[in-house]
């Protein structure tokens, strides 16, 4: 089992969700996050005072999938989140030791 974590542009969330559903992913977790990469920050001006804001808003997606679903999941995010501009984000794939469905106590892939 793997945990797929992706950092994407906010306005791409709906596209990515639809693509993941189509790929057969059964659930996902989404959070609002702040960060910077090569895109770096943005400038804001308040009463003439300019501030460089280093952290810009992004959306973080977490999906846990069985090993056979890793490639289609990553592909779905990669294609649907891409605009071609700087700041499209990153996808990471991490190993998952165990999964428990709290309601039933099921373990492993059965819990997905």
């Amino acid at each position, binding site marked *: 089992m793997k945990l797929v974590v992706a950092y994407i542009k906010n306005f791409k969330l709906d596209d990515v969700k639809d693509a993941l559903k189509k790929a057969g992913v059964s659930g996902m977790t989404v959070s609002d996050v702040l960060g910077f990469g090569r895109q770096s920050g943005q400038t*804001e*001006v*308040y*009463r*003439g*005072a*300019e*501030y*460089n*804001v280093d952290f810009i808003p992004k959306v973080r997606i977490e999906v846990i999938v069985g090993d056979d679903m890793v490639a289609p999941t990553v592909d779905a995010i990669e294609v649907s989140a891409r605009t071609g501009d700087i700041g499209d984000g990153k996808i990471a794939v991490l190993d998952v030791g165990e999964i428990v469905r709290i309601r039933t106590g099921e373990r492993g892939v059965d819990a997905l």
Partner: protein
Amino acid sequence: MAAGDIAWVLMSSALVLFMTPGLALFYGGMVRAKNVLNMLMMNFFTISIVTIVWVAVGYSIAFGGDGGGVIGTFNDVGLSGLAGEDLLFAMFQLTFAIITPALISGAVAGRMKFTAWVMFTALWAVLVYPVVAHWAWEGWLLDLGAIDFAGGLVVHINAGVAALALVIVLGPRKGFGREAFRPHSLPLTLLGTGILWFGWFGFNAGSAFAANDLAVNAMVTTQIGASLGALGWVLAEWRKTGAPTTLGAASGAIAGLVAITPAAGFVGPGSAFVFGLAAGVLCYGAVSLKFRFGYDDSLDVVGVHLVGGIVGSLLLGVLAQASINGVDGALYGNIELLWFQFVGVIAVLAFSFVVSWLIATVVDRTVGLRSEQNDELEGLDIALHEERAYILTESR
């Protein structure tokens, strides 16, 4: 007093009182989310403090007769014996006495002890506000020939220079000039601006103290001043930094309202354009002074109220028109008025700065002005008020 006049001044009192919660929102939106309740509370609590002080002695010092042109008397302590028209005047003037120290709160955002704020406003509402009000509206400045229709000297220059004195004693927020102190909710600020603008009709048109032609003139010039102030500020910033901002429109409207305040009942609609536009552009330029001189006037009370008040009071010396309210300015052949206005500005600057600085110093030496450093970093809402403004998730 005719029933219509009484009705208008009653209504105006309510309008001006409503400005202080409006000011609270105007300021509250501009501070960081961890300090917004402290900002609201400083303003809101000022209503209570000044009401007590004004009824007790403030009104009497300001308007209870005359003691040599410098201060009033103690004849009207507790508003005893006042009724009808006099009592209505005391109520109307109370709402001005409230918002003036409330204006100062914007300068000290995010770092002042609440007890110190309560002490400062209570003392200021006795020792500074009523004295300046007496000078301009009853005493020696009025006798000299200086004019101030609704409080350019008494409210805006007075509060603006007091704010400067207070922040000099208080010192800057940790990180001033290096960190970005961004407004946490500009929609709150715009809502507050709308309430202030609305209430300002009571402030200026109510200062005619009658439902008459002068009140109508004041309402129209007020509307023009606010609109042109917003336009002037936004055009200036658009040219300089490339974007028309909501905060710029809000700030410019307030700057225009400040500048037209002393003049609303002394100039006509045409001149009001000049007041608004000049204040919008000049106050936009003035808000950057704090970075150059290193005083942390957090929400630009100096840049907007002090500078806007001076712009309005001096322009009035040029543009006053006898056809409106019996006094001509320099443009219409009466150069003397500009001199009287200048004397008025200097007198209020000097008196208010010195006494405000003394009050700030006394409060600092006794209870201490400055909040604990950890409280400042954690945020004054939790540290001083044990509340948070925004509880948006179940987990925190």
